[in-house]
């Protein structure tokens, strides 16, 4: 009995000690999000941006990184609420640029940069990768919200 208690405490401690990379980026099913934010690129993990960033992005969809991604008002509000509810908050690190505007790119957040600091500039520029926003080039299961280490394969 005593032994059992001790081993389950050990299990709990081991679970708590798991490194940050066990973070989950999975999402509850959301058909509207998949349809509207997964058509030009895969759905990006909302956990990797601050709520302020999502609100700013969702307020200017007609000029979305050089593309028109405008939406009807009902869907725009529903998606904003969902993204904000699953946003990363302060975990994303510094959330604003030098001029105080919310960062709009996940790939410019402190947390992203920290997690990818071992990747060289030359690697980012490979034709098979093109842009840090192309998560799926290296995270083979990114579209399913799976960013675990053992699913990463950096293309040549």
């Amino acid at each position, binding site marked *: 009995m005593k032994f059992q208690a001790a081993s389950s405490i050990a299990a709990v401690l081991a679970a708590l000690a798991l490194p940050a990379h066990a973070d989950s980026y999975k999402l509850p099913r959301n058909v509207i999000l998949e349809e509207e934010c997964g058509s*030009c*690129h*895969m759905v990006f993990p909302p956990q990797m941006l601050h709520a302020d960033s999502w609100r700013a992005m969702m307020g200017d969809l*007609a000029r979305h*990184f*050089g*593309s*028109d*991604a*405008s*939406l*009807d008002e009902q869907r725009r509000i529903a998606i904003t609420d969902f993204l904000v509810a699953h946003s990363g908050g302060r975990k994303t690190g510094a959330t604003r640029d030098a001029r105080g505007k919310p960062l709009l790119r996940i790939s410019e957040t402190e947390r992203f940069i920290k997690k990818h600091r071992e990747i060289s500039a030359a690697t980012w520029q490979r034709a098979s990768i*093109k*842009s840090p*926003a*192309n998560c799926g080039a290296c995270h083979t299961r990114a579209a399913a919200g799976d960013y675990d280490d053992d699913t990463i394969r950096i293309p040549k």
Partner: protein
Amino acid sequence: MRHLLIIAATLLATSAYADTPLDFLARYEKDAGSPASAERGARFFNMKHGDEWSCASCHTERPTQVGRHAKTDKPIKPLAPSANAERFTDAAKVDKWFRRNCNDTLNRACSAQEKADVIAWLLTLN
């Protein structure tokens, strides 16, 4: 063509929700006030209009095949109805993408004539 229009108009009258590519063609031709030209549609689709992209930049010059988003590389299912039965069956979707893509390639909305021409051309592809 006249027959097609009559058939399309009858379909429209009986089932407003079950849109087909021919329904869209008929509607845009009516709004434009003149018949569509597949040849004009092909030219329109494949040329640049002053900006970086043509329609073909993402949908390819043979839209019976899978396209690729010019910026993100994401695959795009074929646009020609013969290769993808879901195309031009949902008015909200068709309106939304004409609005966005015309804005991105022409910096303005597409006219009813241009939309009719494009659909007429897509319907000739097999």
